[in-house]
């Protein structure tokens, strides 16, 4: 504190942009813009994305060599989808890590359902870009499911553990015991292209709805 220059609280007026036709849409747009900035300036998210893409490329290369003819990227993603899950979890849980960013977020965007929507939109946009090389929209689904779990549990480790258990343990076990359940499992869209699209949409949507309701109801 000692090296601070003389304090002054105001440094000129803050000018507002002219009001748009729909205040709600403008507000949502501003919130999405802020969420995109958050996702773009968090080192842990950058690392998660980088490592996931690198691991996918390496595994795909290995899969291509080991079994030519299969879809190597899909084979790799069976494992590296976990990276997208972690990305989604971190996008939600970093708000609750030390520093208490969630309070700054809620002070800036106090309407909580709008905030939840803005977060989902921003995450879809970022993951869609990241997943473009892999060529499957499924990765958006798994990232959104991660964000839903993160929003519900508010803890990175717990949400990652829950997500990995769901995708890498529970789903395969259910599938092996009840093969007819495939259409209702969240990862069928990855394993069997052309099937499970509805489940890939419904699972993350359900988790996000629970997360949004929890955000709205709980104290910050």
């Amino acid at each position, binding site marked *: 504190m000692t090296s601070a220059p003389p304090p002054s609280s105001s440094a000129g007026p803050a000018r507002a942009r002219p009001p748009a036709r729909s205040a709600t849409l403008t507000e949502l747009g501003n919130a999405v813009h802020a969420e995109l900035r958050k996702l773009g300036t968090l080192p842990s998210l950058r690392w998660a994305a980088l490592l996931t893409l690198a691991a996918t490329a390496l595994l795909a290369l290995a899969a291509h060599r080991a079994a030519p003819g299969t879809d190597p990227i899909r084979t790799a993603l069976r494992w590296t989808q976990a990276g997208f899950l972690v990305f989604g979890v971190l996008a939600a849980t970093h708000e609750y890590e*030390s520093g208490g960013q969630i309070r700054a977020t809620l002070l800036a965007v106090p309407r909580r359902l709008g905030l939840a929507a803005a977060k989902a939109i921003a995450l879809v946009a970022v993951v869609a870009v990241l997943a473009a090389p892999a060529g499957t929209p499924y990765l958006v689904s798994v990232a959104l499911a991660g964000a839903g779990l993160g929003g519900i549990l508010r803890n990175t480790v717990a949400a990652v553990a829950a997500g990995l258990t769901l995708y890498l343990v529970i789903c395969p076990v259910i599938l092996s015991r009840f093969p007819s359940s495939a259409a209702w499992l969240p990862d069928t869209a990855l394993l069997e292209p052309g099937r499970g699209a509805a489940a890939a949409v419904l699972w993350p949507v359900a988790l996000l709805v629970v997360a949004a309701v929890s955000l709205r109801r709980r104290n910050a």
Partner: protein
Amino acid sequence: MISIDRVSRPGILHEVSFEARPGRVTGFLGPNGAGKTSTVRILLGLDRPATGTATINSQPYASLPRPLTVVGALLDGSGAHRARTARAHLRWLAASNALPRARVDEVLEAVGLTASAGKRAGRFSLGMSRRLGLAAALLGDPPVLVLDEPFNGLDPAGIQWMRAFLSRCATEGRTVLLSSHLLDFPVDDVVVIDHGRVVARGTPAEVQGDHDSLEDAFLSLTGAATW
């Protein structure tokens, strides 16, 4: 105008009511654990009261359009994620309320953090974190400031800086609600809270009454003189 009207939370707040009038500094005083932070969190829409209402210019915080242009709030901690730089933190905040980007550099300058703008918030000292929190509060140049324990934990130089800063805010005519467990800043109005109840309200002279000093009045009202 900040208006707290019969706000209750079981076991924490009991029918807390007071106003912070425009252009005045209202000291919200009470011992640690008296309910100051709970009241402030309800005022800012972070927590929900069981009963009662808290409004700013007759609106609940959550109904304010572009709230950063109406109320600036300082809570414990800077509100910045430890891995993000001060500038990146303020930029997303500015974006959320459609504030011009130039405002970020202006508030960094105003709190003396220009040289540390590229530093991660997690590397900030307590005093710097507090100033980053103030920069965020000032981003929208709000007419109302709500400051929860701004002096807490600061070293003497930090306290001096904060005093000068608050004086400046007051002379600029901002409405200031200043919660504190110490009487460390000249205020226009006083609200004293203890065990979740407002035990005194008024100008410092009114609250002081027959006591030798405002501090004596505060100690006798809150029974805080236990040593």
